[in-house]
């Protein structure tokens, strides 16, 4: 039996527990044994991307301390996270942090500490399609949905059509294409407040494109982007719902998404 550790992320843990419960429900249904190490916190992405690499380093070490031993002992086969940008932080930027520390004459210690968790961290849809080899997860969701591929999922992780293949196999779900799908929604972490005018302009264009599809739901694989998109939709009274892909994939006829 596959056993995985869930890295839910600080944003989901605090603000979107429903997404975490959906991941647990979905993976359990697919026969995966899931654990949530309760000492987990944040991957350090907000610090790193805002220019505080030295504040991000302790958080990367903490992540490795939480998940590394379980990977090393074989207790966990993988670390699963329902966030494209947090997965990209670990896989793309942790190696870079190690290299930079080496370049600053601090030796290989950071790189060695982070090495075990880097290749074992998977974004949820990646794990479903590539590791479990499923696209039909037995979900039921009778709604019109448009999908926004978030930037880190699209360009850093290269998720490609994995999310839309998963959505395409959901019973009752009608998937409609989002115009300008590959354009950033304007969230960008601290960018959303540091450059709020541009961020809001990007967000407004994104939700207008979403509204033009006539879909009831805008789906993405990252709640940070959905927080920005959903906040914009609510302010503009769009009458459209932002929903994380895990919640759609967890929904069944017996237990529909509430």
């Amino acid at each position, binding site marked *: 039996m596959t056993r995985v550790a869930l890295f839910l992320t600080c944003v989901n843990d605090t603000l979107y527990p429903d997404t975490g419960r959906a991941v647990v429900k979905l993976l359990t249904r697919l026969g995966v044994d899931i654990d949530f190490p309760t000492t987990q916190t944040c991957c350090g992405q907000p610090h790193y991307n805002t220019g505080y690499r030295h*504040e991000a380093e302790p958080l990367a070490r903490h992540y490795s301390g939480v998940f590394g031993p379980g990977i090393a002992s074989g207790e966990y086969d993988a670390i699963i996270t329902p966030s494209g940008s947090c997965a990209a932080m670990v896989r793309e930027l942790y190696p870079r942090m190690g290299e930079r520390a080496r370049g600053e004459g601090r030796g290989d210690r950071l790189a060695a500490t982070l090495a075990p968790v880097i290749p074992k961290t998977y974004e949820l849809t990646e794990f479903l399609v590539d590791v479990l080899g499923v696209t039909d997860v037995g979900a039921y969701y009778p709604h019109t949905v448009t999908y926004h591929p978030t930037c880190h999922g699209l360009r850093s992780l290269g998720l490609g059509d994995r999310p839309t293949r998963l959505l395409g196999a959901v019973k009752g779900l009608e998937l409609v294409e989002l115009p300008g799908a590959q354009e950033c929604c304007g969230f960008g972490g601290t960018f959303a407040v540091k450059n709020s005018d541009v961020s809001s302009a990007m967000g407004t264009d994104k939700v207008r494109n979403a509204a033009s599809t006539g879909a009831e739901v805008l789906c993405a694989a990252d709640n940070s982007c959905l927080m920005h998109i959903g906040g914009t939709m609510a302010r503009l009274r769009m009458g459209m719902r932002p929903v994380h892909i895990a919640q759609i994939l967890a929904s069944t006829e017996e237990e529909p998404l509430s």
Partner: protein
Amino acid sequence: MSGMSGTFVGMPAFPKAAHDAVRNQTLRANLRHATHTIRDKRARAVAELDDWAGLREAGRQIKDHALRHLDRYLIQLEEAVQAAGGTVHWAADADEANRIVTRLVRETGESEVVKVKSMATQEIGLNEHLEARGIHAYETDLAELIVQLGGDRPSHILVPAIHRNRGEIRDIFVKEMARWGRPAPDGLPDTPAELAEAARLHLREKFLRAKVGISGANFMVAETGTLVVVESEGNGRMCLTLPETLISVVGIEKIVPTWRDLEVFLQTLPRSSTAERMNPYTSMWTGTTDTDGPHTFHLVLLDNGRTDTLADEVGRQALRCIRCSACLNVCPVYERTGGHAYGSVYPGPIGAILSPQLRGTTSEIDASVPYASSLCGACYEVCPVAIDIPEVLVHLRERVAEGGPATRRGTKVRLKPAKGHAAERAAMRASRWLFTHPAALATGQRLAARTRRFHPRTIPGPGKAWTATRDLPTVPAEPFRDWWQRTNGGKDADK
């Protein structure tokens, strides 16, 4: 005036300039139309080549190799140019380059020059420098002409008048051409063909009269001493061939080792910039020839912060740039603000990593442009020399926020953290502490959950930047970790 162009001194920080730009509906419409058109055309032109990834990697490696051995290739270039009858001058900064060019023009006895579109001469503010010394410089690239006649600033590397629509261009021609030379024809309409013809007649007068031409170059070939200008109109060719004296001001990073290296860039540059399979006017010259073209040729090699940039392990990749502008055209931030907000002749994503390296991060605008990105990565994806722009942006944010090592005028310095980041630094430290103390984090989450009914819908201070346009998410009754512990990972029934 510090090292670089005086045109942008005193620019406000990016967010303030952007605040006005995003509210300018004409500007937004002009930019949206133009960037999307070029963006889509570029994507089609690139998709035609099945070896695009290979060309991109080759371009990256050629540039990296040339930069690694820049000292050797520059000497080789100097020798080759001199052997072909040219003269080479070395300029450490903008002031020195401007002084050299002024002296060279004065030596010809002329008081006007025609210019090929050139980023390097804009970077150093050459036109303004010459004007102040009684030498008139006429821009001959159509878009640069529009910018110059309009008393405007360029807002794009490749299409400097991208922020203008044809109605605005017609008005500028009608109003301004007469002051500079041949006036616009009476009753000039705003159709592209008529506008181009008006510019053609206006410029023809300049070409036939000018004795001195000033250019930059897209490439310099070290082994042969050949300079290359890639342009679309043929106006550059006129400036490069008709005058008696040609002065080229070129950044030292424009060097490629061999003639054969051009094979790569003459494929990637046109497709990335104008979405053309082959560039319309590619001019190449090696020194001078007795029978044709300028009989005097000067090459001014410009440093102006480039060797300092080269000293930085992460930032040096910005010097690979071939000025194609693909990153501008695909950038969602540039699309909404235009180029002026970046406060530099280098706008958009590449400008956000070039200006703070060439000029340093001491001015308000240069310290703010590294943050003018959502780090969406579209720029890196389209870059034909694979500059990881988001990586350099984050690196420069670190330089601004945390300070650290940098090189200024050849000397290693340790920069202090920029002012105005103290509150942010404290918040980052506090959250780092919280995130390395899970029990404290859990307590904080519980507190937020219990007080959720009292959370305001709008928040003051920096939070206002969020709530002005977006609702806040509702804090749930229970964080996930509490649910997990209470229900034994969902195995026990929810109570």
